[in-house]
């Protein structure tokens, strides 16, 4: 039975969420290639260097906030319905969709306003050239902050739909273990609820009233601390859905089954516990924060490596098991027995491989003292284009090749483009990210329209700056081509007529070591959430208390339009 026929209502929801995600991906990718060509000086004819930052804001918000959140909503909706075998509560789930879409439109319109002369709307210039991090006291149009808040609130409501499904299922199955996919979804959502408190307080209590003129000042250090309280866990909000795919679908695509259900649950619980009390590692170079708190965040960050290292083991072991089921022999030659020509499989594998590289550069970022060499250099975007830009984005694209046919009932079209697409993305990212990392070591900053200065010139540690620039431009262009290839396949598939029998289905094989082997305490959400909150109180309580002790809005800064 095809998923769309079993759960037609939920399928429609997933389709709508994916559609918004894909539109955001298309616009975001276009903005991306404009930047890659502009900042490398290859072609600067699209926008002026002043408008570059509008494009950069759009790229960050559309890809890191809109594309991710909508795609994750779609994937989670499918995963909950599939593993609990029921339609999602429609009213809640659709309200979530419309709230998020309203927020997206508000944020997008206020960003685009900056490209069309920033007309005055409701007494404020309609622009939001404040980048994805919107550090106060740079001020955007209030609609931008309200839009960002609505996207978050919408995702909270979506989470409610998943929990409601679980409660319905639980009343019918009082003694069963929570199915693994639902367990992963709900653990991720709990982490998300806990971590978005920071940005919600920042935006709702401070930035919205401040941008409207209701309060005069905000404390820039306090608001950015609240941002980073959310700013690191958000990367796990991107990553955990990719892990859901790698743990539960990838082994099946490889022809096998998951190695261990208990370990998968342990990994997700570890993320719930450790994702949030680490935000200060984005503020290693911030004044006003005692180094002791930075040290605590550093140790927590290092322990966050553990669930990812365990994942590397489990995923590789599961895929190897799949290869051996397909008749593979030998220590390494099993790699040849994998379906590298299937875009869903190849995309996930390449994404995972690249995530390993991203993990290593992340260890450098987390290293409190070596971080000084690379903080705010282009090394950092080099790093996160491997993580969110590949581990998440390429996994999302790859799994769409597998999932979209199931939520539409239509066979995947343009198969040859789909087959090549993950490789194009991989090569483009390898070239671009590698050069970005090296350029970062030469001290070249991120977030700049023209990384050249009148007072001095940069010098490459190895290789020349010119050669790195060309590689960034070529890589960025290949990535744009990769995104376009994906969107062509999706558009052609979505617009096609339904016909024939699908070769894919949503049945997930039982793990080698099943849920019976995992202790029941792992499913105790109350316990883990309580511990997570406790760890946050330890890491954030004292520094936040000292920041607000001198007054919530002091030392204060009035809004400064940019």
């Amino acid at each position, binding site marked *: 039975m095809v998923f769309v026929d079993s759960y037609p209502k939920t399928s429609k929801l997933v389709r709508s969420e994916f559609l918004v995600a894909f539109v955001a991906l298309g616009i975001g990718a276009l903005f991306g290639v404009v930047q890659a060509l502009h900042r490398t000086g290859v072609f*600067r004819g699209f926008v*002026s*260097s*002043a*408008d*570059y930052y509008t494009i950069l804001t759009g790229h960050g918000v559309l890809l890191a906030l809109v594309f991710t959140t909508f795609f994750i909503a779609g994937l989670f909706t499918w995963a909950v319905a599939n593993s609990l075998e029921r339609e999602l509560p429609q009213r809640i789930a659709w309200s979530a969709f419309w709230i998020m879409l309203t927020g997206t439109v508000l944020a997008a319109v206020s960003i685009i306003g900056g490209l069309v*002369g*920033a007309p005055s709307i409701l007494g404020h*210039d309609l622009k939001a050239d404040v980048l994805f991090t919107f550090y106060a006291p740079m001020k955007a149009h209030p609609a931008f902050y309200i839009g960002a808040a609505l996207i978050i609130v919408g995702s909270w409501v979506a989470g409610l739909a998943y929990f409601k499904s679980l409660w319905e299922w639980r009343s019918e199955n009082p003694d069963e273990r929570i199915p693994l996919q639902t367990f992963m979804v709900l653990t991720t959502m709990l982490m998300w609820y806990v971590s978005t408190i920071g940005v919600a307080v920042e935006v709702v209590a401070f930035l919205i009233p401040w941008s409207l003129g209701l309060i005069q000042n905000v404390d820039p250090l306090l608001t950015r601390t609240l941002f980073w309280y959310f700013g690191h866990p958000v990367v796990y909000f991107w990553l955990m859905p990719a892990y859901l795919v790698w743990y539960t679908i990838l082994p099946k695509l490889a022809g096998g089954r998951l190695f261990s259900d208990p370990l998968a649950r342990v990994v997700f619980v570890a993320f719930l516990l450790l994702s949030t009390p680490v935000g200060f590692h984005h503020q290693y170079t911030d004044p006003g924060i005692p180094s002791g708190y930075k040290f605590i965040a550093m140790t927590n960050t290092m322990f966050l490596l553990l669930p990812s290292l365990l994942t590397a083991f489990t995923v590789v072991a599961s895929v190897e098991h799949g290869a051996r089921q397909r008749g593979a022999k030998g220590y390494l030659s099993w790699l*040849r*027995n*994998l*379906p*590298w*020509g*299937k875009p869903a499989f190849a995309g996930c594998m*390449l994404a995972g*491989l690249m995530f390993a*590289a991203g993990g290593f550069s992340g260890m450098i970022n987390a290293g409190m003292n070596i971080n000084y060499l690379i903080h705010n250099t282009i090394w950092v975007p080099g790093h996160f284009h491997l993580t969110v830009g590949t581990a998440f984005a390429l996994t999302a694209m790859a799994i769409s090749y597998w999932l979209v046919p199931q939520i539409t009932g239509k066979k995947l079209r343009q198969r*040859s483009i789909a*087959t*090549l697409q993950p*490789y*194009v993305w*991989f*090569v483009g990212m*390898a*070239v671009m990210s*590698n*050069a970005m990392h*090296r350029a970062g070591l030469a*001290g070249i900053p991120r977030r700049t*329209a023209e990384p*050249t*200065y*009148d*007072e*001095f*010139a*940069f*010098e490459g*540690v*190895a*290789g020349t700056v010119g050669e790195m620039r060309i590689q960034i431009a070529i890589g960025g262009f290949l990535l744009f081509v990769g995104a376009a290839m994906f969107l062509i396949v999706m558009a052609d598939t979505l617009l096609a007529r339904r016909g024939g029998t699908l070769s894919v289905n949503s049945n997930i094989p039982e793990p080698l070591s099943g849920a019976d082997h995992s202790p029941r305490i792992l499913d105790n959400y109350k316990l883990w959430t309580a511990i997570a909150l406790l760890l946050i109180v330890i890491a954030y309580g004292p520094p936040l208390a000292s920041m607000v002790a001198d007054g919530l809005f002091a030392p204060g800064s009035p809004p400064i339009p940019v």
Partner: protein
Amino acid sequence: MFDDVDGPEQKTLLRLLIIVGIGLPILIEVVTFGSMMGHHLTGDTGGEAVPGTPTAEPAGADVGDPILKSANVSARIDAASVVTADDGWRFTLTVNVTNTGSDPTAVRLDSVTTRSGETVADTASTGQLPVGDTDDVTQSWLLPPGERPDTVAVTVFVYPDGESVQSTQYTVALGDIPVSNR
């Protein structure tokens, strides 16, 4: 391998892509590492031995610098600023002119060319300066947003007998003029 792909061409292509995709970054890393070790072994340990970062190209004229190589006048930049706004970046230049020749003279600021090659014309001139006199001339140009001034065109007029006029145009390269928002 690739047993689920149609056609041998695509298999070859895929194999090639895998080799390029994984080989290329490894190659770059090996070259990077090799050149770093090379520096290390030859005693050139990067940061310590290289005295800082190299300076950029020799810059043009800054505030306080003389700008015209003319026998008739001496001129220097008294003030220069670039101020950002949504409708454009305003470049304002004040030049102090002294008539050092033997005939009356005048200096006119003509146009500014930006670093991306756009020219904005708006002129301002000193009056006719008697020998030995000094005057300031100020003009501002609204450059497109994001544009910084590169050169300014300046014309020197000399009036040998009060009637006829000889003019010479100079293109003055500007140095690093810091940008501000007010």
